[in-house]
């Protein structure tokens, strides 16, 4: 072992704190700056209640999906089937309700059960059989996507019961659709789980050093399976919000959310508690990205700006978190 010069006692912790607090609030500050800039550029359409309400409401699905991804990310697995599960769950709810006349409540339960089934299969292959989660979820994601197209006969299904639409979008609190508040509630729940339960601590150690976790008596397999299951469950919930928002479902729906969700999760990990995936950081990241895109579109950008913006955000986020980690390790 060679020494790390900065590990010497005096001064270094204070310095590290200072650096971190800069990093910690960089994203929220940038978000505010973006809002200010667009408000100046488009004073009549951007800083309006309607616009704010629209941004907050329409991204609730993305928030729930992103928050779901945090669980496998924290324990060190990648789940890329989650976006397809959103589509699967949405399609199941709409299909069961409209074509098979199942009551909305039961339709929701069945959709969530199927979502969990995908998570369970992910866990079985990735953890029990030890195949890389990325590959497993690539497969199950494609299966879910195919199943969605198959059962809908590859066409958009409409006519979801108004009762679900009401409890997702029609009802509003302070002018914002109720689905926004659901997503905030889920965000708070995951924040609590990660930060204020022993489970959150264990997930952290599992994600950072699996063997250390195993030798600390932590049941690594159970935690990894649980995380994949939880992610699929939240993706299923996101799917129900997705169906409720539009009252319909289309084959391939939800898969456009994969990149934004990962971009937001990684971007979120550079803020509040830099270097760790965290719920409120992800929430801020989702709305930062959404604000930027809406602003650019109001300025006349074409809709491919979304892909460019999300792709760039993902790269910047991964770069930033790598730099944070390197700086923490090298300099302290």
């Amino acid at each position, binding site marked *: *072992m060679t020494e790390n*010069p900065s590990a010497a006692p005096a001064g270094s912790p204070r310095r590290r704190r200072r650096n971190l607090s800069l990093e910690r609030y960089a994203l929220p500050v940038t978000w505010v700056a973006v809002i200010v800039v667009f408000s100046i550029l488009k004073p009549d359409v951007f800083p309006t209640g309607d616009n704010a309400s629209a941004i907050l409401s329409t991204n609730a699905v993305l928030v729930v999906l992103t928050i779901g991804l945090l669980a496998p990310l924290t324990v060190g697995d990648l789940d890329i089937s989650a976006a397809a599960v959103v589509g699967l769950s949405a399609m199941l709810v709409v299909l069961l309700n409209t074509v098979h006349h199942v009551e909305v409540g039961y339709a929701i339960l069945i959709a969530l059960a199927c979502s969990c089934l995908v998570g369970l299969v992910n866990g079985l292959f990735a953890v029990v059989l030890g195949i890389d989660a990325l590959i497993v979820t690539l497969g199950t994601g494609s299966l879910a996507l195919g199943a969605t197209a198959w059962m809908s006969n590859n066409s958009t299904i409409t006519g979801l019961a108004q009762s679900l639409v009401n409890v997702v979008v029609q009802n509003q609190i302070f002018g914002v659709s109720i689905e926004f508040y659901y997503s905030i509630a889920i965000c708070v729940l995951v924040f609590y789980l990660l930060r204020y339960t022993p489970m959150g601590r264990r997930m952290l*150690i599992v994600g950072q050093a699996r063997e250390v976790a195993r030798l600390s008596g932590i*049941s690594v397999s159970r935690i990894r399976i649980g995380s994949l299951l939880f992610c699929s469950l939240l993706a299923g919930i996101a799917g129900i919000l997705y169906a409720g928002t539009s009252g319909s479902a289309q084959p391939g729906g939800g898969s456009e959310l994969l990149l934004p969700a990962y971009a937001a999760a990684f971007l979120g990990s550079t803020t509040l508690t830099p270097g760790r995936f965290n719920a409120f950081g992800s929430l801020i990241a989702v709305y930062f990205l959404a604000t930027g895109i809406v602003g650019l579109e109001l300025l006349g950008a074409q809709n491919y700006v979304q892909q460019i913006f999300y792709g760039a955000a993902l790269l910047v986020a991964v770069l930033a978190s790598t730099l944070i980690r390197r700086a923490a390790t090298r*300099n302290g």
Partner: protein
Amino acid sequence: MVLRASGLKKRYGGTLALDSAGVSVLAGEVHGLLGQNGSGKSTLIKVLAGVVTPDEGELEIAGERLTLPLAVGEAHRRGLRFVHQNLGLITTLTVAENLFIERLSLARRNLYINWSSFFDEAAATLKQYGLDVDPHAPLQELELIDRSLLAIIRAVASNTAGDSGSGARLIVLDEPTVFLPRDDVGRVFAMIRDLVSKGIGVLFVSHRMDEVRNHTDRVTVLRDGRNIATVETDSVDDEQLVSMIVGEKTAGRGRIVDELAPGEEDVPIRITGLSTRTLQNIDLVVRPGEILGITGLAGAGYEEVLYSIFGAGRATAGRLELGATIIQVRDLTPARAMDLGMALIPADRLLHGIAARATVEENETITIVDQYFKFLILRRSGLNEVAARLTSQLGIQPKDHQMQTDQLSGGNQQKVMLGKWLVRRPRVLLLHEPTQGVDVGARADISTFIRQMAQLGTIVICGSAEYEQLADLCSRVAIIGDGRISRVLEGDEITKENILSECLRTSSRPAAAPAAGAEG
């Protein structure tokens, strides 16, 4: 004088890593560089290599004053060569490719490589330095010791073709012996003596007092980034050296142990018929208050006893008895072993011991975190109190338990790992190489803790290849060879020499592969 560095200053943020440090090495001498983790040794060496730019300081090589920072490759051109702890060899390449790797990476000037002369030349170079290995062999087939020697030969022999540079004048060896089996270390020193006799200077960085004492002409001690002294090795005794390295005597910290020891219960641990891949039918009984050492030659598999009774290795048979509990070793898991009051301090700290990127507090409290989950909320203040107490009681520096663990020095990380298990007040403490890669000061602290834990009624089993440490700590030492306990030393029989000779007696075969960590 081959090298004279003086007045080196380097500041990282608020920390002075080097505060007017320096070192001078004569031609044909072995010069030791000693200091605790965090004393500035690594930074000093990085300055010499041109990797770190000092804020101030002077550097002379072979009497010639150089401007700092050194240009890329300047140190090499002037005849400085470096062998780092990890050796920098590539296991998938052959011996010859590793030996002449610089030539291969600079092959732009000749597109064609004459492989037969390449290997002939490699064979000649190896022969010149007396290393008997096949240049065609892949590196991964080499014993650890041969790899170390190869790295040294490469450093000495490398002289990029067509360069105007000089041959090697000074070799810097940064803890070259840490990962070597004890029995093989002598060959490294034989090679060092050979180099020195050719007028090359050697700067030797090590934590091991005995090596420094036996193989250096002079030593320079660094502490807190400053030169404490440069002395002839023979003119000081071990005590004096240690106090130069450690500085102020660390205050006694006896209290922690009272607090962390288990409740008094005179229940021995009884292991019968333990068999693993390498072990057959091991029987052991250890009483509270006892420190049992288990050791053997590298590859003897003594560490499998520790990992398998903690439920972290693959036992094929065996029974464990602790108080009223009788359990098949096969059925043990780490969680069950912990329920029985066992704790395992593994040798590989980064792979098995602590999560490097978690905070000190998160590491120290991970095994007791459930106790602080009340009314559905994790009592973070309680966890912080535990961590703060451990930090002060174990003397962990710096005293900030919210720091990321890999920012601490090796010795302090080791204390964090100890703390993580001591908070559980284990009845049975299993230790595997508890002071590996740890500086002198922390080593003494850790030995003291182990001894005090035993005095307060803990069952301690310590697997180690450091015979001196075993002789110092243990009340009995079991020697394992050929899969069995070949001998148990007790009382006055326990000396470093006896342990070594008993280990050697266990097997006529040469030492096999290096000791592995946990399996599975």
